[in-house]
C-alpha cells in the first residue's frame, strides 16, 4: 500500500474538475458553500477583498477555525499558507486539510523561494500567471495549478490574461520541433522535462483551475470556455448581496458552461455582485499576482 504519491495528489484535483471551490472564513460559510454545491472549500483568515481593504500581514487561518471547518463539512477542505512558509504548510498537513494553497493572497514569507512541495504528503495547489510559472510550481511539487488572476477585485481581466497566457504557452510548445524545446525551457524559466512532456501530450500534467476575480456566473462560465478545469471563487460569493443564491448559480454555470440558456437563467435575480475594482487603479504594490515568481 502506497500513500502520498503523485498519482494520489494529482488524483484528488481530478475529482474536483467541473466544480467550484469556494473561499470560506468560518464553518458557517463552509456549510453554505457545501449546501450550494461547492466541490471543496478553501479556508482563509479573511476573504481577499477584506485583506485588500484591511492591509497588514495576512497569514494562515487560526487552526481553531480550520478544525471547525473540517468538522462542519464532508467535502474536501483546502487551506492557504503564505508563499515559502513551509511551517504553516506543515501545520495544515498536521491538521488534516486535504489540499494546501501556497497563495499570493497571503503576505509572502519568502520572496526568493517557494515551498519544496515534494516533501509533503498533502497535495499543493499554486497560482500562476503564465506557463513558465505554472511549470516552476509543478517542478517544485504542486499537484494542481490555478491562475492567479487578481484576487479581491471582482474583476476577471487578470484571470483571463493568465489563462490565455498558459493556453497559448502550451499551444506554442506543441508545434515546436525537438531542437527548439531547450531554448523554450530557457526562455520560460521552466523545467526542461516538463516542457518535453507538454510537447508530447499537449496539456499540463495537472489540473488547472481559474481563480482571482470571478464574481458572476458569467465570469465562471467564461473561464470554463477558455479551457480551465474548474473555478475558485473568493470574495465573489460572501461579498455579494445573496451569497447562497450566487454560490448555487455559479456552480450551475460551471456545470453548464456551454449552455447560454442555463447561464442566463441562473444569472437572473441574484441581487448585487461584489463591488469591483479597476486593476489600472491599483499600484504595483497592491497587485497580489506580482507576489511569487
Amino acid at each position, binding site marked *: *500500500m*502506497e*500513500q*502520498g*504519491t503523485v*498519482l*494520489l495528489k494529482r*488524483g*484528488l484535483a*481530478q*475529482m*474536483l*474538475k*467541473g*466544480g467550484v471551490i469556494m473561499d470560506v472564513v468560518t464553518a458557517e460559510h463552509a456549510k453554505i458553500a*457545501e449546501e450550494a*454545491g*461547492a*466541490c*471543496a472549500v478553501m479556508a482563509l483568515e479573511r476573504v481577499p477583498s477584506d485583506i485588500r481593504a484591511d492591509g497588514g500581514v495576512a497569514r494562515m487561518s487560526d487552526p481553531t477555525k480550520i478544525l471547525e471547518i*473540517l468538522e462542519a463539512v*464532508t*467535502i*474536501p477542505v483546502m487551506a492557504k499558507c503564505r508563499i515559502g512558509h513551509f511551517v504553516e504548510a506543515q501545520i495544515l*498537513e498536521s491538521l*488534516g*486539510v*486535504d*489540499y494546501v494553497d501556497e497563495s499570493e493572497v497571503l503576505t509572502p514569507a519568502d520572496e526568493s523561494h517557494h515551498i519544496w512541495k515534494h516533501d509533503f*504528503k*498533502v*497535495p499543493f495547489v499554486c497560482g500562476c500567471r503564465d506557463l513558465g510559472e505554472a511549470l516552476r510550481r509543478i517542478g517544485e511539487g504542486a499537484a494542481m495549478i490555478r491562475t492567479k488572476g487578481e484576487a479581491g477585485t471582482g474583476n476577471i481581466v487578470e484571470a483571463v490574461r493568465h489563462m490565455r497566457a498558459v493556453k497559448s504557452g502550451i499551444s506554442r510548445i506543441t508545434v515546436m520541433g525537438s531542437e527548439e524545446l531547450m531554448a523554450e525551457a530557457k526562455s520560460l524559466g521552466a523545467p526542461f522535462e516538463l516542457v518535453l512532456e507538454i510537447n508530447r501530450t499537449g496539456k499540463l500534467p495537472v489540473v488547472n483551475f481559474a481563480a482571482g476575480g470571478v464574481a458572476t456566473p458569467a465570469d465562471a462560465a467564461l473561464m470554463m470556455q477558455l479551457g480551465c478545469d474548474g473555478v475558485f471563487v473568493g470574495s465573489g460569493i460572501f461579498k455579494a448581496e445573496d451569497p447562497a443564491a450566487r454560490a448555487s448559480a455559479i*456552480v*450551475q454555470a460551471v*456545470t*453548464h458552461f456551454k*449552455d447560454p440558456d442555463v447561464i442566463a437563467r441562473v444569472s437572473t435575480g441574484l441581487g448585487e455582485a461584489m463591488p469591483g475594482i479597476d486593476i489600472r487603479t491599483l499600484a504595483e504594490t497592491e497587485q497580489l499576482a506580482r507576489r511569487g515568481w
Partner: protein
Amino acid sequence: MVIGVLALQGDFEEHAIVLSRLGAEVREVRAAADLEGLTGLIIPGGESTTITRLLTAYGLLEPLRERIDDGLAVMGTCAGAIVLAQHAAGLDRPGIERMAIRVKRNAFGRQRDSFETDIDIAGIEGGPVHAVFIRAPVIEGVDPPARILASLPDGRVVAARQGNMIALAFHPELTADTRVHAYFLQVASASVAAAPAGLAHHV
C-alpha cells in the same frame, strides 16, 4: 455502442478517454435528453454531495432511475458508487438508490489517508488490478441480489455488482489498465442482447 458519462462534476473526462481507447462512442450526460439511446452509463468520481445536488436540480434523478430499472448498465466509481447505493451514510441528499449496498463516505479518512494498492476483482482475468483510493468510501454491507466483486486484505468490500450495476470504491480511470472498463463494456453489451423486445427502443 454509445456509453454515457455523467458530466455534472468530477473526472468524467478521464472515463471518456478510457472508453474511447476501448472503441466505445462516448456521450457526456448533463440532461435527461442525453440518456436517449445509451447502452451504458458511467457515474464518475467527484464529490457525491455536489453530484447528488445537481442530479436533483436538473431533474435527472427520476429519468436515471427509470432507465436503470429498464436495464441500463451503469458503473459508479467512488462518488458514483455512493450515488448508486440504497444507503449512503453521511449523505444528506437522495442518490439513485438502486443498488442493495450500504456505503460509508470518506471511510478511510481524509486525503492523507488516500492510498494505492493491488486488488483481485472477480470476473477480471490477468492478475490483480492496481486500485487508487482517494478519500474513498467502503461498501459496508452487500445485500442480495448484490454480490461482492473485490475486498481489501482486511475484508473491507470495495467493489460489488448487482445485475447490470457495478459499484467501485476506487478509480480505474486513473491508471493505464483498461480491464475494468472493458469488463463494464461486456456487461453493457450483454444487457442489450438480453433486453426484452419491448425495450428495444432504448438501445
